[in-house]
């Protein structure tokens, strides 16, 4: 069987799960914000997984790619009248532009990919700790640019009034696409070789695997998906500013990645589900106060983050492989069946 | 020292398989074999640095297999590791000082160091220099001297002549003999240099692919056809 089909088939379990969740949303009507948030989270964490899960290099910089996509989409789809007022450094054709959402999203994805290509070629020559730090530096640079280039991004004040183009259906479609693409990539020659090199960069390199080129490929793919996710995020949330793409969201993303299991696409989805659940449900408690008799906490700001911290620490100590572990669900099923018939 | 049933792994790979060794007090015992035979892993297991293993390791009849390397060393076992592994950026004197730490004494034992500098005069000239500036042979001497600082009763030497010129190889073997005679140290020597090892040791073991293939006195082993074929250049 042509190998991508096998991967697609393998991804159906996860995709089915996503569709089921969406179906639940359709049948229950009402506000689909939380589910849309979930699908967007799936897309971004799958982006991270396709790079870090395969290459073994933990990326703290995905929010740079994500944010780039968000800002590109936001700038493009912001009301032209507002644009000329607020975004004074934009060239006129951009200020007047008001493209359809899917064009804006395509451009956002392309921007993510472009940034990935630009940064990946130099950065991915490094190994180990250096690469991680360089990617972190990318995050810091992006944060500074988002905040300081006020003529284009409106800096700390942020872009407001972004159109609500992120419906649940659209978010679902992109989440499904991301899952399939990530799975196909993982099982592709590039993906396999990357995973082999993850264990030992030196021997892989000596066998003739152009490790760097493969890493760049994964990084660029990751950037494209992240850019698309960013566009959807911008439309979902309606207002973006640099803090949406800095350390705290990076942490949430890492939690999603690790808790579910960094080796599998299914793990990424599970992680996204858990974290979205926490984000949506716990946030409501943050404004309340807690009276324990001895101690009184007036505002539980940061409770969400606390729960995320506890989640990831639990996984780190008790089950570092993550909830899903090393195998995709379909791989586990196949192995089980083979064991039965052998 | 006695080792019984030692089996050591690296993940799924078994590097040492059910090995039995005995080193009597005052002996020089050689552990011979080709690369990958499991000799270094055996030494690392004895000293406690390699933990993925089963089997019994006894020193003077007392089980030491469960102890961490820090404690094994304090019981009187010294190791000059493969590749020397001296602290390159520290001075020779600092390297020696660290070696003495195993003796558990607070003060530097100057007398001990003097004795070792007598045995290894070239180190005396280089005391203040960074260890990285020493030649290969000098670094090997430093590694051995460092292991000797706390006055161990059992000294493990892992390939001390690796990469050394013939004259220095001679020097090292002379040293080993001197150590046994003058310092009252029992020595377990891992070597690929079979000829010379057999000349200076009292007994030897031959390891191959993780298991002990032959053991005996040097004469016995020289007569052993397997040793002859593999190492002494005698066609089988």
């Amino acid at each position, binding site marked *: 069987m042509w190998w991508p089909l096998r991967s697609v088939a393998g991804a159906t379990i996860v995709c089915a799960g996503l569709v089921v969740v969406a179906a639940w949303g359709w049948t229950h009507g009402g506000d689909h914000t939380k589910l849309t948030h979930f699908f967007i989270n799936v897309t971004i964490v799958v982006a991270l997984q396709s790079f870090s899960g395969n290459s073994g290099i933990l990326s703290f910089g995905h929010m740079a790619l994500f944010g780039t996509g968000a800002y590109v989409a936001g700038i493009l789809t912001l009301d032209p009248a507002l644009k000329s007022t607020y975004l004074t450094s934009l060239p006129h054709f951009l200020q007047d532009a008001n493209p359809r959402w899917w064009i804006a999203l395509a451009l956002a994805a392309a921007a993510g990919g472009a940034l990935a290509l630009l940064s990946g070629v130099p950065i991915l*020559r490094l190994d180990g*700790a250096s690469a991680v*730090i360089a990617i*972190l*530096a990318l995050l*810091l640079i992006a944060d500074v640019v988002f905040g300081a280039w006020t003529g284009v991004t409106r800096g700390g004040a942020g872009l407001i009034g972004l159109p609500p183009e992120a419906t649940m259906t659209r978010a679902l479609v992109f989440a499904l696409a991301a899952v399939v693409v990530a799975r196909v990539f993982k099982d592709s020659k590039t993906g396999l070789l990357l995973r082999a090199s993850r264990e030992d960069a030196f021997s892989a390199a000596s066998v003739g695997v152009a490790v760097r080129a493969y890493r760049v490929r994964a990084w660029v793919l990751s950037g494209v998906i992240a850019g698309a996710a960013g566009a959807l995020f911008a439309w979902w949330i309606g207002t973006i500013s640099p803090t949406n793409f800095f350390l705290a969201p990076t942490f949430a993303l890492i939690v999603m990645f690790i808790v579910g299991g960094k080796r599998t696409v299914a793990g990424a989805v599970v992680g996204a589900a858990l974290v979205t659940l926490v984000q949506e449900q716990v946030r409501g408690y943050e404004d309340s106060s807690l009276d324990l008799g001895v101690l009184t*906490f007036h*505002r539980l700001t940061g409770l969400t983050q606390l729960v995320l911290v506890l989640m*990831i620490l639990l996984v*780190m100590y008790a089950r570092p492989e993550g909830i899903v572990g090393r195998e995709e669900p379909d791989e586990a099923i196949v192995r089980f069946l083979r064991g039965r018939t052998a | 020292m006695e080792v019984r049933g030692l089996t050591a792994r690296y993940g799924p790979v078994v590097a040492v398989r059910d090995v039995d060794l005995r080193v009597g007090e005052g002996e020089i015992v050689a552990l011979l074999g080709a690369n990958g035979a499991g000799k270094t892993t055996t030494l690392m297991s004895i000293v406690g640095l390699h933990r993925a293993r089963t089997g019994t390791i006894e020193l003077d009849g007392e089980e030491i297999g469960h102890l961490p390397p820090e404690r094994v060393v304090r019981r009187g076992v010294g190791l000059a590791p493969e590749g020397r592994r001296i602290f390159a950026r520290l001075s020779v004197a600092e390297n020696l000082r660290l070696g003495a730490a195993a003796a558990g004494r607070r003060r530097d034992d100057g007398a001990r160091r003097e004795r070792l500098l007598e045995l290894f005069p070239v180190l005396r000239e280089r005391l203040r220099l960074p260890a990285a500036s020493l030649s290969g042979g000098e670094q090997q001497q430093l590694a051995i001297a460092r292991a000797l600082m706390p006055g161990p009763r059992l000294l493990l030497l892992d390939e001390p002549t690796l990469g050394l010129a013939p004259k220095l190889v001679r020097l090292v073997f002379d040293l080993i003999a001197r150590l046994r005679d003058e310092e009252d140290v029992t020595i377990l020597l891992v070597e690929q240099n079979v000829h010379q090892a057999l000349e200076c040791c009292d007994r030897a073991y031959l390891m191959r692919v993780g298991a002990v293939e032959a053991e005996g006195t040097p004469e016995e082993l020289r007569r052993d056809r397997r040793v002859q074929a593999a190492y002494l250049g005698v066609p089988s």
Partner: protein
Amino acid sequence: MTLHEFVQQCINGLSLGSTYALLALGLAMLFSIMGLINFAHGELLTIGGYVMWTMLHHDVSWVLVVPATLLATTLAAVAMERIAFRPLRGASIETLLVTSFALAFFIQTVLQIGVSAEPEPIEHTGWSDRGYSIGPYTVGLIQIITTAVTIAVLLALVLFLRRTLLGVSIRAAAEDFAVVRLMGIPAGRVVVAAFALSGLLAGIAALLFFSSAGSVSPTSGTAPIVAAFIAVVLGGLGNLTGAVVGGYVLGFADQILAAVHSGTILQFHDAVVLAILIGLLLLRPQGLVGRRQELA
């Protein structure tokens, strides 16, 4: 920018550089021994700041504030090792990284919930505004004090690392941790000592930093620690001398760039520094000061 302005800005950057240098040194020490990039190091600074705030708020004299702060940060660092990192001994670098990241957020959140998410003011001690003229230059009292303290600390540290057995062990551990154990030196002790030292350094940095910063908030540690990371990389990952040099270089650079580009375009200066950093990592992975080493 004239030479005079340049030198003046460098002088102005001394206190910032000292803070960065002390933080970077603590980071570099941990990295050199354990390969650990401790994201939570910035939180040690924050904890120092909160201890200072609590005590000054209650009108405790500085004579007590100083040792209390140092004790607090040192203990916090040791606690970090004991509770968060020791159980993970031998785990992959990735695991350690993520855990330290989580730890950083944990401490921040605890402070947010336990104290407040809002900044708390720290008594602006009057002496930090004073200045003296030395030749054509103005030297602030704060610059003098921070530089003097930092030099004293560095000297003490050098003595410790060279003269004491524990100090020599730490230097050795940075080269070959396993062999240090062969010296009969308990591995745990060396690690704890390194953490304690890094905590102490962070405490000193906190005292210097918050004396002029004016306030402390749960995220106070973020900006300085980012700078400290940059300094560590500039100096060559794990190279202690390099970390100090990197800290000062960065302090000067920050000061100069801020003065020159106080206009619109280059609040970007941070980004410029970071981009230079990446370039540096590529061209000279051993940093400005280090020697070329083989990848371990």
